[in-house]
């Protein structure tokens, strides 16, 4: 099974540069997720790999073969589209068989392959139906079936779950992950949803404005973000940022409250990043701040509290029964070792 190499990919649309020099190695069998806000170039990059867009510069190599000059059909790639892209005039069976027929497979092989894929995705009973008779989730399965039925070198997914409702999405996410484990093929998956990225990926590539912000294992990006953008993008609710000033081992918040800090950074002002789960309510803790709890959102197992602290709102994950403190000014303890400091100018993480 071949590796994929992207070497300095650039894509221009007129004066607008959508992809600004991306280099990436994707070893065979990896589940890679390209994630980023809309307009970050993730879909353009995926479509360039598929051959649906011509790249302006750079080289795409698949298994040692440069493929960026080839037509999509010559690349031996399979792709699942967000809109499913099923042929409405063909049955589910023929939709799945479409790629095999295009490549002139024998009828017996087609039949075996289609049934194998249908069984894997639990859509055997739908094979004779037309796409319009199917629910959104079933259509998505057919679209995935059409991709996996062929023995491709690379499987591309362009936001395949964004048209599904939340509950269905959770189920399909798990199935796609299981599918990858069963097939052992290289998956490249584009999404704007950081939860999808975190749960599915073996490696996340976080894109912003046509460039890679950071690439790495999901927890690596989550726990050691390179910069404020990555820190803010991953995690839900997102990381809280408070502007603080550091001087001689003390960190001062805008409202004058102080904490001692071990951070080995020069004196000056920084953005202090604290994830919701790194706050807790403990009247006797050290590293404690006073803040008023404005809104409590119980989710059952935990509650999210919105505090007013030092001129800004911060969200903290609290125990389930936090509602009792609503409207009160209470003590918030911070797990200082898990917080991060970012440069106010560049946004780079400094401590």
């Amino acid at each position, binding site marked *: 099974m071949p590796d994929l190499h992207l070497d300095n990919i650039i894509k221009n649309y007129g004066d607008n540069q959508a992809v600004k020099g991306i280099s990436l190695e994707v070893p065979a069998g990896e589940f890679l997720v390209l994630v980023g806000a809309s307009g970050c170039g993730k879909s353009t990059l995926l479509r360039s790999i598929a*051959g649906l867009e011509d790249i302006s510069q750079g080289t795409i190599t698949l298994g040692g073969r440069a493929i960026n000059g080839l037509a999509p*059909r010559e690349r031996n790639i399979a792709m699942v589209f967000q809109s499913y892209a099923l*042929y409405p*005039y063909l049955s589910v069976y023929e939709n799945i068989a479409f790629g095999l027929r295009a490549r002139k497979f024998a009828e017996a092989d087609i039949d075996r392959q289609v049934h194998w894929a249908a069984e894997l995705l639990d859509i055997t009973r739908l094979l004779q139906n037309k796409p319009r008779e199917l629910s*959104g989730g079933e259509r998505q399965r057919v679209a995935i079936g059409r991709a996996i039925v062929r023995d491709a070198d690379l499987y591309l997914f362009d936001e395949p779950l964004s048209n599904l409702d939340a509950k269905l999405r959770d189920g399909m996410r798990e199935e796609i992950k299981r599918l990858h484990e069963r097939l052992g093929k290289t998956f490249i998956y584009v999404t704007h949803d950081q939860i999808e990225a975190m749960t599915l990926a073996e490696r996340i590539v976080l894109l912003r404005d046509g460039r890679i912000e950071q690439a790495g294992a999901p927890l690596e990006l989550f726990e050691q973000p390179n910069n404020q953008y990555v820190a803010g993008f991953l995690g839900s609710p997102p990381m809280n940022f408070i502007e603080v000033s550091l001087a001689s081992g003390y960190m001062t918040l805008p409202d004058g409250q102080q904490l001692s800090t071990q951070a080995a950074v020069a004196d000056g002002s920084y953005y202090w990043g604290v994830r919701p789960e790194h706050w807790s309510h403990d009247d006797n803790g050290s590293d404690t701040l006073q803040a008023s709890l404005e809104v409590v959102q119980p989710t059952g197992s935990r509650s999210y509290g919105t505090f007013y602290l030092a001129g800004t709102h911060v969200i903290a994950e609290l125990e389930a029964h936090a509602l009792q403190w609503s409207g009160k000014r209470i003590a918030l303890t911070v797990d200082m070792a898990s917080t991060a400091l970012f440069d106010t100018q560049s946004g780079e993480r400094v401590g």
Partner: protein
Amino acid sequence: MNKRDSGLRLWLRFTIALFVTVLFAFPVYWLVAISFKSPEEVYAYPPVWFPQQFNFSSYLTLFRDGDVWAVWNSLVTAGISTVLAMLVGTLAAYSIVRFRTGGDHLSIWIISQRMIPPICVAFPIFLLYVSWNLVDTYVGLIMLYTAFNIPYVTWMMRGYIQDIPIELEQSAMIDGLTRWQVLRKVVMPMARGGLFATAVFTFIFAWNDFIFALILSKSEVVTYTVKVTGYFGSQSTFWSKISAMSVLGVLPMFVVVATMQKFIVRGVSMGAVKG
């Protein structure tokens, strides 16, 4: 049927529907009726509403004299020009939609050709055809009808092709089809309703043409529209021949519309993309 459709309202609806139907169907009936009437019945006053017996003599005359060849000529010119115009126009439309050929304005420019009153170009075309020896030939009329219909086909097919989700084509290309195979296996089936509807109208345009057929034919390639007018004599007018010829001219239209009706109804593309 809901409650309000009962009693008087229902009657009113049926009466109006009947009136409209008669209004539209009567001329066709009258045409058919005359073609079967005997000469006395044609001129009888008060008019004879139903011919006493079916008199096929007008039709027999048309077949015996070889006048029916005019219908054949119409079929050939309209049929072949429809096929050609559909071929060229559909490819042009595909190119405009998917490759943005000619930018934003080409399609408007193409349809503007359709806005010129045909009579304005009749004379130059006649002179051109004389010098090319195309007067009174199949090729001449077919070329003309094809040229006149390409803008219409391009314009109509442009709309139908725009409605096809591009992902269907992209998915097919990734699955292993060439661009031409995509056209045949994805675009054609997706635009099938539009293709048939456009073809029917294109055929009707060519079929109903009178002015160019009149100017550009002499004796060999005379279409049925021109032939019919030939029966209006200065001495006498052959009503039964005219109506028999007209019936023969209307029949192919009936067949075309009746067989294509189910394709003209669109809706084949539903379910392709979640809307």
